[in-house]
């Protein structure tokens, strides 16, 4: 019997019907059923590890979704992301540069939502001044590579994600290689210096770039399509930046990361980018948001 049939039968056998809080019924593949089926798949493919392999977990989740059965861990993504969109997310590849304040929170959201393939680069190590806002910075991860903490976190949060950490600063040449095969680039860099290069390379790769920056209680998020003008064209690479004076407090950083993630997920789902040719500017001190067309 072909393996896929066996897997599909296993999924159908282990699925249960759940009633949502609104009364709608849906078929759900329980969390532990995904693990069991992935272990079985791994054994068939010659893996002997007790921990299911990330590829096997992703296969089980994809097969379930194709049968119209939602893996329990994605149950509350519904109906923000349809079955077809959840499948697209699992098949997407995101390339992120920067795993600090913005990057750590974006990574957390993308991994939890179920983006299947994420590569992320940061050559930096954690220091105590990162503790105020950086999700991946803990007493335990201090002095360690941000990329290593990111890999450990993704494994803990959603091992079905195929995560590729790169503990290096990328120059423009490395950026070009890093973006190959990605559907979308995330600019989670700190400072202005490297942002124009990333914008150029995303354009060369022909993929959208979702970018953001904060200073104090203010910040912005923007989407730049290949060839279009972006915030880094306006701010330049060597201006004195406001965060050097105002710092980077957690609310603005997390807000920017959440807005970035929502836009990244929109785009990966195949929807129109909402922030094309625009910046969403916010100020949490005055609680104001404004969309600025560039």
């Amino acid at each position, binding site marked *: 019997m072909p393996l896929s049939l066996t897997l599909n039968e296993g999924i159908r056998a282990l699925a249960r019907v759940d009633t949502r809080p609104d009364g709608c019924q849906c078929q759900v593949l329980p969390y532990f059923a995904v693990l069991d089926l992935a272990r079985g798949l791994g054994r068939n493919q010659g893996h002997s590890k007790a921990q299911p392999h990330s590829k096997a977990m992703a296969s089980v989740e994809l097969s379930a979704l194709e049968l119209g059965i939602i893996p329990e861990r994605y149950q509350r993504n519904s109906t923000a992301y349809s079955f077809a969109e959840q499948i697209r997310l699992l098949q997407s590849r995101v390339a992120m540069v920067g795993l600090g304040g913005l990057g750590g929170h974006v990574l957390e959201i993308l991994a939890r939502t179920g983006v299947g393939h994420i590569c992320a680069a940061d050559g930096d190590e954690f220091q105590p001044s990162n503790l105020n806002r950086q999700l991946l910075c803990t007493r335990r991860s201090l002095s360690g590579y941000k990329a290593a903490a990111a890999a450990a976190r993704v494994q803990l949060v959603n091992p079905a994600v195929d995560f590729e950490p790169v503990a290096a600063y990328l120059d423009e040449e490395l950026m070009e290689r890093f973006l190959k095969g990605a559907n979308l680039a995330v600019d989670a860099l700190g400072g202005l210096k490297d942002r124009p290069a990333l914008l150029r390379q995303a354009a060369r790769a022909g993929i959208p770039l979702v970018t953001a920056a*904060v200073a104090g209680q203010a910040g912005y998020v923007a989407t730049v399509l290949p060839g279009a003008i972006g915030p880094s064209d306006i701010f330049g690479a060597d201006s004195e930046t*406001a965060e050097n004076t105002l710092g980077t407090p957690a609310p603005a950083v997390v807000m920017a990361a959440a807005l970035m993630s929502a836009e990244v997920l929109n785009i990966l789902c195949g929807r129109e980018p909402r922030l094309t040719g625009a910046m969403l500017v916010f100020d949490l001190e005055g609680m104001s948001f404004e969309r600025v067309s560039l």
Partner: protein
Amino acid sequence: MHVSIKCFATLSRFTPPEAEAFAIAPGETAGGLAQRLGIPMAELKLIFINGAHVEPDAPLADGDRVGLFPAVGGG
């Protein structure tokens, strides 16, 4: 003629007391307004009027919402 002014981040220190209805002269430009507020041009990177990015020589009209933004790069 009056405009409303929003100064972001480090520029907020230049916010005038009457920012919600700030009197402007006929023919005054966005850049001229920023200069009148004392904002150093090197610190002013992005000007927007009514949600659209403009150059400093953009003229102001009664009721415009003016946003002034410095270089921001924190992450």
